[in-house]
């Protein structure tokens, strides 16, 4: 009987865990990809995050989807910090050949080849700009853009005060703008920016 009860409890826990976390997979993967830099590493990072999260699930205090996302993201950021950044990432990230290829065909929905090429160029520039950010800025910028997380959620995920998140995001986004304004996806927008409006970057 005890065995049966334990089995049922395990099954119930697992189903509840899957219900709560499965929908968060795409956002986590997007963030993992930008953090880890390679599809295979991103898969491993997300996989390890879920396995660790399930092991800690009984002890987690999760009240809603935002809580759950912040909790899973926190586990993922810690896993990434522990394992991946030590030997893998630097500001000059080497992208996998597959991604270089994918990037070259991005923007496929646009029919106009010129617009498509421009879009693809922007995609490459945007990814390079994110990858090239200093580590502490990159993590918050990645979480902000890939998971649409609030300042508070990011603060929970990276374990620092909301004010620090806001300041890092501010600096990260200014750097992105500086690096991307010449690649604006809509040429008209870029041409509107004259030399007098060049950004002063707060470092």
């Amino acid at each position, binding site marked *: 009987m005890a065995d049966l009860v334990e089995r049922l409890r395990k099954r119930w826990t697992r189903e509840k865990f899957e219900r709560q976390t499965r929908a968060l997979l795409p956002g986590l993967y*997007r963030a993992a990809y930008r953090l880890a830099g390679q599809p295979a590493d991103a898969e491993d990072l997300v996989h390890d995050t879920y*396995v660790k999260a399930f092991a800690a699930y009984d002890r987690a205090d999760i009240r809603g989807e935002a809580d759950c996302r912040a909790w899973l993201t926190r586990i993922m950021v810690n896993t990434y910090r522990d394992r991946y950044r030590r030997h893998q990432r630097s500001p000059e990230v080497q992208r996998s050949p597959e991604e270089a290829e994918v990037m070259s065909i*991005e923007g496929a929905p646009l029919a106009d080849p010129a617009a498509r090429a421009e879009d693809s160029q922007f995609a490459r520039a945007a990814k390079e700009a994110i990858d090239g950010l200093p580590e502490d800025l990159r993590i918050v910028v990645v979480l902000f853009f890939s998971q649409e997380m609030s300042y508070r959620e990011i603060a929970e995920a990276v374990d620092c005060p909301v004010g620090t998140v806001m300041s890092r995001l501010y600096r990260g986004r200014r750097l992105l703008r500086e690096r991307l304004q010449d690649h604006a996806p809509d040429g008209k927008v870029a041409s509107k920016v004259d030399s007098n409006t060049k950004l002063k970057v707060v470092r």
Partner: protein
Amino acid sequence: MNCRDIEENTHAFLDGALSDMQAEAIRHHLGACAACRREVELARTLESAVRVVVAEDKPPENLWNRIAGNLADGHGSKRRIRGSVWTGVAAAIALLALATVQSFLAKPVAVVEVPVSEMRTFVESRRPLDVATTDPQQLLAWFDGKVDFRLPPPPSTVKPVRLVGGRLCYFLDRRVASYMYRHGDRYVSLYIFSESGLEIPERVSASLAQGVSASVHRREGFTHVVWVEEGFVYSLVADLSTEEIVDLARGMTAQFKESKHAGGSRMSVQVLG
């Protein structure tokens, strides 16, 4: 509010993180200052585009199955039940479950659930097959080198389904061959993978042939028949009634046996490499 204030508050303004009063003051300034308006507009355009670019990174279809397979293997929840209250509540749940959901007793669940989940993902994603062919030998040749075991030739027609192609899947930490069939406008998948290290459902619900018995399950709107032969798990997932899928599984088993006796089978438990 001056241009410097706008520069410092652009992001908070775009994020809707300012108070109504602050946001109104910014809007007021933007109404009068073309330079700041361009700045804010540029930031908005660039950041929307960055979001679109980042959203293009999609997880591979089989990632969830890989994760779910490892959760099912028992990494994870380790808490033991303590105290009489917990035991009492759990026992009540257990009795309720016993009375209402017989399938809860089917242990273990991974081999039963993961293939269904994979099939559902495939159907819902409307992905194409990895290879489309009605020729069993061609399909067999396509799998050559892609899985680390020898496959039996797929039956080309087993009423009411016909072979249309195949897919290479990865779940339960192993490569899986999927023979894909059509039944009207619906897909039927026969997954074949190594039994090694897996627990197979004990509950036997149907006999497919002499010495071959299977368990039958209903999950997520699909019926699922699981049987083991010569070290391989056969997992047939379809949108069919229990009777229909058992008949189909019997038909397939018979054809596998036939081709084996005819000497045409390359099936072997020998694991390559």
